[in-house]
């Protein structure tokens, strides 16, 4: 089974600053999807951004962008101009394109935004 590793249990950032959350994964597959989910205190899981492995261009959604390094199996999330509402648990997730029925999640990074 694929494994997803988030090595930063907790991170903090000053409001309006930039923060990067790290994620690495282990797979022997060549095509797959990667995701970042946000879980605020309400515990509702919200999709932040998605990256298809066959696309070399890094995905961007407003203040959120990723640095996808396929060879290194790294998928980091950059949050620019951090806002108080960004405070949440962030999960990295992997899904195979071929045996794509399962999602594999990391253990999460808790992000605190300091006013």
């Amino acid at each position, binding site marked *: 089974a694929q494994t997803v590793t988030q090595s930063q249990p907790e991170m903090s950032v000053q409001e309006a600053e930039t923060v990067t959350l790290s994620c690495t994964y282990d797979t022997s597959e060549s095509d797959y999807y990667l*995701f970042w989910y946000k879980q605020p205190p309400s515990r*509702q*899981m919200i999709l932040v951004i*998605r990256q298809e492995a066959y696309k070399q261009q890094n995905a961007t959604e407003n203040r959120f962008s990723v640095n996808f390094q396929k060879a290194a199996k790294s998928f980091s999330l950059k949050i620019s101009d951090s806002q108080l509402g960004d405070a949440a648990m962030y999960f990295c997730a992997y*899904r195979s394109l071929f045996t794509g*029925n399962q*999602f594999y*999640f*990391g*253990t999460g990074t808790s992000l605190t935004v300091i006013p």
Partner: protein
Amino acid sequence: SQTIHQWPATLVQPVGSPLSLECTVEGTSNPNLYWYRQAAGRGLQLLFYSVGIGQISSEVPQNLSASRPQDRQFILSSKKLLLSDSGFYLCAWSVSAVEAFFGQGTRLTVV
């Protein structure tokens, strides 16, 4: 548009009692359905997933079971709850190879 309903939102059950959590999806056909558990401050553990009616795959052997009696209905059950079953349970759905969409979760406390 697609929506997912999960209930109840909160549940307190005594040890040894049965459990039934229900999840339904609207606005899509033949979705993949998932049950996850999240312990306090921890990541998501996949419990069961289903690719069709009556097709259930179990990831973690334990005293929980799942059923899919209808295309868009997914039920998580237990005959006798244990203290260790306490946690936050999330239902999710997906189609093709795109992202999973999650319900609002059920906070289960076994006392």
